[in-house]
């Protein structure tokens, strides 16, 4: 059972400000049905002072998602939009007396919905229907929870994250099938944070053709194929030309809509992690 603070419980049983403001001045949404978390916040704003007079929310999600929404509405009522814009996900979590690490993504969702509402008030973004993904224009990294690279980069910067597990706790990315872990590691590297050192295999820059072939084969057998088999798929190594690894997806993976992700993130990610950082993967259609 999650170790929720008393504050989280009071904001869940029952939450404050549930509902929808009739003809609101601003609407903000975050999350989606697929993610298992979604929040819609509506605001009443005093035009002259830009003071938030009222806020209401609707949330699909677990206890801490509902509590985060509830505390958020409490926090913003009475503030000006400029003041509200400074609220971070850490503020939301702190006001709740802390959240379990695995639930930090709930506070991130609160912050995102608030930002969307403020942007909406300023006419910057039209509210989008819940259920859409990749709406920030970023590239979709986690297909299970619909998380983009932009969202991940931001969570890394603002919360000083350094491992894939932490990114999962804050954004949910990588929490289900795990096939985007390679991609998340790339983003972590790109954002320039320290991550756990790579296994020795990846440190070797000069591999002979023979060594590379052997390592590719081992990595596919050990790291990739077991993951694919979990979903009823598999792959076959067709050829290796220099640093281009040609594979054929089999079983459920062949013709899967997300085969592109599988190749790029799982296969490519693992090979870049364990073999060489510049390996390229190509799909040979059967």
């Amino acid at each position: 059972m999650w170790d929720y603070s008393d504050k989280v419980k009071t904001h869940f049983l029952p939450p404050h400000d549930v509902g929808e403001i009739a003809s609101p001045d601003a609407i903000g949404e975050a999350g989606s049905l697929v993610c298992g978390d979604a929040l819609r916040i509506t605001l009443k704003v005093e035009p002259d002072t830009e003071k938030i007079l009222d806020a209401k929310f609707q949330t699909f999600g677990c206890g801490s998602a509902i509590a985060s929404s509830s505390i958020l509405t409490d926090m913003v009522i009475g503030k000006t939009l400029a003041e509200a814009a400074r609220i971070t996900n850490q503020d939301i979590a702190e006001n709740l007396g802390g959240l379990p690490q695995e639930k930090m993504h709930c506070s991130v969702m609160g912050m995102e919905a608030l930002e969307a509402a403020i942007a909406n008030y300023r006419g910057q973004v039209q509210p989008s229907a819940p259920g859409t993904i990749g709406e920030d224009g970023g590239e979709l990294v986690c297909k299970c929870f619909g998380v983009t690279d932009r969202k991940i980069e931001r969570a890394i910067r603002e919360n000083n994250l350094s491992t894939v597990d932490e990114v999962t706790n804050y954004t949910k990315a990588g929490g289900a099938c795990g096939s985007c872990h390679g991609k998340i590691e790339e983003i972590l590297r790109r954002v320039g944070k320290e991550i756990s050192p790579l296994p020795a295999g990846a440190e070797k820059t000069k591999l002979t053709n023979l060594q590379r072939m052997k390592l590719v084969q081992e990595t596919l057998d050990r790291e990739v194929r077991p993951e694919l088999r979990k979903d009823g798929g598999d792959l076959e190594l067709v050829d290796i030309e220099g640093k281009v690894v040609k594979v054929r997806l089999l079983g459920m993976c062949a013709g899967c809509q997300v085969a592109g992700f599988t190749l790029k993130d799982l296969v490519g990610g693992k090979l870049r992690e364990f073999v060489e950082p510049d390996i390229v993967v190509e799909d040979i259609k059967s």
Partner: protein
Amino acid sequence: MSKVIYLDNNATTPVAPEVLDVMLPYYREFYGNPSSMHTFGGQLAHAVNDARAQVAELFHARENEIIFTSGGTESDNAAIRGVLEAFPEKRHIITTRVEHPAILSPCRHLEHQGYRVTYLPVDDQGRLDIEMLREAIKSDTALVSIMYANNETGIVFPVKKIGAIVKEKGCVFHCDAVQAAGKLDMDMQTLAADLVSISGHKLHAPKGVGALFIRRGTRFVPFIMGGHQENGRRGGTENVAGQVGLGRACELAMSDCRTETLRMAGLRDRLEQGVLERIPETRVNGDVEHRLPATMNVSFAYIEGEAILLKLNEFGICASSGSACTSGSLEPSHVLRAMGVPFTDIHGSIRFSFSRYNTQEEVDRVLEILPPIIAELRDMSPFWNQRKK
């Protein structure tokens, strides 16, 4: 908190008072070691063997075909490792995508050690395709491990047919019967399994004790090595009180299994019918024709399972969910995913599981409390509001 209504019996069950009564003397007075030469300790070997006979009775098996373990997880691990080590030349294992982690985790680990593992899929009702199993068995298949009944959905696999196919192909069959033991027939004269796992705390014995049936003549290398206990097949000083408790629990289950099973099925059906009648947009997950009598798994669209559990918790009602938010890993139920249940329905899935101690009053109380909880959470959900529009 109000009086607890415990409907999470697939997670664990209360220790039966009759079981606790026979256990206590082995903590209070008879604390000896059954391996000792003195009578004070040595006499406990009789208690252990009597308990073994009671467990053997549940399986309709011989006493020397039962070894005691620390629980279901150890029994499963011991079965897999014990058989593989006995057939070092065979490098292939067959199991299913919906097994308990006590099977799936060791299998994944073995893949890293070079074993090939076939994970048989299930259909949208959670059923296995027996012909796929037949085709999957190869000349180097060491072991087929398939559960008797699923812990999340209660789906019962056709283990007798499975056993017949596996034996026809000359392979070893392990069956994880942790959820079925004490609820369904466990006759080893008709079920062609070579190894069967059971867990004490799922049938009103305490946690920390279980058993593994190993059919006479099955090649098996001990998993936990130590002293000569359990005929050299499982080292470690006996958990005498736990084993005595497990023996008594098996005896209790044997005494009224049929009537209790019918009664639990009646309660389950009452709750399920009541929920479906009172709460719209609710689906039952899995094949209702082939299900444990005491398990129901339902999905409430547009809301999330953890929130439902927290609300139920306020009324002392205990259940569980396949939602990502309850898993500790953010991973939604692998069982429901294997069945192709939509993500959104997995998030809103709730499992109620019964035991002999549940009553009709409890079911009726849940039927009073649950519908307003679902309605309240749906009122809070943007998707439900969108749907209403």
